[in-house]
């Protein structure tokens, strides 16, 4: 089962997600990136039905880009979150997207922010959030150790604590994770946490 979680720090926000792509009992790949970079200062970590996840996050990413092209200014994180929620809500009673989303962003005027958007279009602005079976462990660890205005180092320490719990306590635990960060300098990949690396393949 997929895990996505995130938290807000002093002037940044972090989103972490597992990187397993699973179909029934088969692991397709162990390096699937589930955290989409929406624009220069927004991250969208998503979990759920694989096809829906890719489709919906790309749809949101392209709409965010279109807004900026049309209007010359980027969407705020709050506006992007509300737009995303609206799209989920509109589809909900006809053809729902089975995707859970953690949207993190940095706005110059308001700083870092994090939004929890579940597949039935709930929207919550939060300091910390998590989805999936891993959320039982991630939320407990964050509830215990999270403080407001943490530094990047302190936040990564907490993220690693969460990953450790998920790895050790979840029966089918995802082996690898990706961590992305967004701050005033933009959204970017921060690190990978890999416990299983694919063996190097010999060339022909």
């Amino acid at each position, binding site marked *: 089962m997929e895990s996505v979680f995130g938290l807000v720090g002093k002037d940044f926000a972090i989103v972490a997600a597992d990187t397993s792509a699973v179909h029934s009992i088969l692991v397709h790949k162990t390096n699937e990136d589930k955290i989409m970079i929406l624009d220069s200062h927004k991250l969208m970590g998503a979990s759920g039905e694989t096809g829906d996840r890719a489709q919906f996050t790309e749809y949101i990413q392209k709409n965010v880009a279109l807004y900026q092209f049309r209007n010359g200014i980027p*969407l705020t994180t709050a506006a992007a979150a*509300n*737009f995303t929620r609206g799209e989920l809500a509109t589809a909900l009673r006809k053809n729902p997207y089975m995707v859970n989303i953690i949207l993190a962003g940095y706005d110059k005027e308001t700083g870092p922010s994090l939004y929890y958007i579940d597949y039935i279009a709930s929207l919550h602005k939060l300091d910390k959030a998590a989805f999936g079976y891993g959320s039982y462990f991630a939320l407990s660890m964050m509830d215990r150790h999270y403080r407001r205005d943490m530094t990047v180092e302190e936040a990564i320490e907490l993220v690693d604590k969460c990953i450790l719990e998920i790895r050790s306590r979840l029966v089918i635990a995802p082996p690898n994770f990706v961590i992305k960060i967004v701050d005033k300098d933009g959204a970017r990949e921060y690190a990978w946490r890999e416990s299983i690396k694919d063996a190097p393949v010999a060339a022909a």
Partner: protein
Amino acid sequence: MSRRYDSRTTIFSPEGRLYQVEYAMEAIGNAGSAIGILATDGVVLIGEKKVISKLLETSTSVEKMYKIEDHVACAVAGIMSDANILINAARLQAQRYAYAYQEPMPVEQLVQSLSDTKQGYTQFGGLRPFGVSFLFAGWDKNFGFQLYMSDPSGNYGGWKAAAIGANNQAAQSILKQDYKDDITREEAVQLAIKVLSKTMDSTSLNSEKLELAEIYLSSGKVKFQICPPDKLNKLLVNAGLTPPSADA
């Protein structure tokens, strides 16, 4: 004259003109004028009322100024019934945006959206263009106070000062001379009154013939205030445009 080409709204004339659009602008040229002036601390809109009657229910009837959203208002020149349709469309577009994004719609995007609506009537459907020009005044966090003018062709522009309706060219040239970039809201009100008094056909001015509105910030909120008649009268008296009444 290519009269053959002007009954169909959505085709060009051989000279490359859209006659129906031009005729719409003619109609506006006969309507009551409106002037907008962008100041450092707000936007001023002033309009000339054409329907003047003692029998008008003034508390409920507004002729020139309309609020589109909390942060955007407009002044109108042209066919009032056409204007009502477009004002409603603008209000809808603003609320749709706020519903989707939970944020106020940026002013230019609202003007652009309405202008796109107007443009549609110059290209398809076989319907005539709207006989209305607008002056949009508003505030948003991206560009602060803004003033836009839009016409029946669907063209729009951002202005520091603009005039629509009767004698707009004369008004525009006076504005070009007297406008300065650092004008305050108070000075803009006086300038607006002065320009309108010079371009209006009426021999005397009183508060019944005018509508004045200001857009400004108060405690972080955008305020749209239509000037009450007694305050407007005082402004006119101070500007020397109306003789003070006997019982002042």
